[in-house]
């Protein structure tokens, strides 16, 4: 392929040609448009750098050379689309991930929850459920679980099935036990699960008040009013426009004085409603809606 000269550079983007970047960006956006129109999966506003890496991985795995070739293949072959979907779904999660977050939740959010007769909590992008079980354990220990209902949602049905099963890998229990203790846990973590041959089966009672449901943050609307919304390490995969839209969805779904919890490295600055929140614990990314 010929070298990309400065003359091809669209006006006002940069002082030098971004190498082969231009054409690849065109191919990627055409592929995403095709995927959306043919299959309805909308990745058009996901953060491109991460998406591009994943798409290239699929290009090579299919024995192809270009993103355009992958587009051609997957538009005519639903099985290929399925494989790309698997590549694009990043479900990495852990119990009591970032223990300091759970500690701050115990200390700063639970007292607020005690003032309500009943609380509704939305865990958006809950993946395989580790976060939900962690939260349930915390609420149980703080004696507010009985008057709480957790709505745990994800775009991906198959991770929700795994979340419902409550079985997590046994070899993770050491790490999770340490996290649990650092997160302010007060019991023996092993009380919460039974070690079985295929994994650690967590107590069913932990999800008595949990509703798992499919929900797409890109296209679905709010489905309730919440006292707490937790959405961690989901919006980092979105571009800023989509982040803004999802922030608006969360703001509109929170009651006044409701609490929003984000991932450790996520910023509320991109919320169009930044001014509508006050900081509850800025380093743990816990905010309270005031406006």
């Amino acid at each position, binding site marked *: 392929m010929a*070298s990309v000269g400065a003359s091809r550079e669209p006006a006002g983007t940069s002082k030098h040609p*971004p190498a082969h970047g231009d054409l690849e960006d065109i191919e990627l956006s055409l592929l995403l448009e095709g995927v959306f129109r043919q299959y309805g999966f909308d990745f058009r506003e996901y953060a491109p750098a991460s998406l*591009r890496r994943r798409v290239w991985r699929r290009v090579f795995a299919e024995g192809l050379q270009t993103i355009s070739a992958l587009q051609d293949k997957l538009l005519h072959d639903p099985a290929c689309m399925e494989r790309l979907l698997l590549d694009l779904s990043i479900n990495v999660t852990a119990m009591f991930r970032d223990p300091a977050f759970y500690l701050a939740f115990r200390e700063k959010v639970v007292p607020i929850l005690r003032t309500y007769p009943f609380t509704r909590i939305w865990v958006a992008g809950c993946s395989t459920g580790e976060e939900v079980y962690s939260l349930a354990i915390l609420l149980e220990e703080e004696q507010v679980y009985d008057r709480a209902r957790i709505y745990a949602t994800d775009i991906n049905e198959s991770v929700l099935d795994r979340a419902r099963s409550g079985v997590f890998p046994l070899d993770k229990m050491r790490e999770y036990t340490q996290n649990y203790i650092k997160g302010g846990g007060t019991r023996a973590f092993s009380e919460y699960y039974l070690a079985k041959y295929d994994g650690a089966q967590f107590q069913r009672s932990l999800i008595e008040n949990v509703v798992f449901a499919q929900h797409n943050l890109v296209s679905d609307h709010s489905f309730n009013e919440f006292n707490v919304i937790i959405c961690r390490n989901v919006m980092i*995969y979105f571009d800023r426009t989509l982040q803004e839209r999802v922030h608006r969805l969360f703001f509109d779904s929170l009651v006044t004085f409701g609490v929003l919890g984000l991932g450790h490295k*996520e910023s509320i600055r991109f919320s169009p409603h930044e001014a509508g929140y006050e900081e509850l614990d800025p380093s743990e990314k816990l905010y309270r809606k005031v406006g």
Partner: protein
Amino acid sequence: MYDLVCIGASWGGLKAIGQVLADLPAELDLPIAIAQHRHPDSPEGTLAQLLQAQTNRPVLDVEDKMAIEPRHVYIAPPNYHLLVERGSFALSVDERIQFARPSIDVLFETAAHAYGSGVIGIILTGANDDGAHGLARIKRVGGVAVIQDPLGAARRTMPDAAIAATVADAILPLDAIGKFIYGLWVQPATVREVTKA
């Protein structure tokens, strides 16, 4: 001419990165992004604090979608991959890549895509081969590849792997890297042919 300096380091990296930063003259206004392997439980922020002691530039742990600004030093936070978009950073919690998160390859490859020949990549000491692919990618899109001389490195595996993966523009002892970068900034290498692999 240049847009971004990317540094990758592992074992022994703190000291090495500290020296490179300390050697950069104050007027050099390029942003610098760093992926240094750390233990997953490394306390938050400490790397930034330690490096801040070596330089007057603002040193920051990256937050998602943070804008890339001149003169700033950006650190990949522990347990996240650091990715470069045009004008800003992105983070991901994707699986570790060859045991590493942050992965140096991810930083370098995304920087190469976003800024092409405007990237200067630097591989320092380390006991694995992360970064070798990424540096080769930077080189392929016309950027500059700099590698610490394996002879003086605390661990030479990473520089050796980078040398094997690409044709470096410079293989230098640690205390010459800062000066070399400054020299490039003052007088950019002549416009490079942009080639595709």
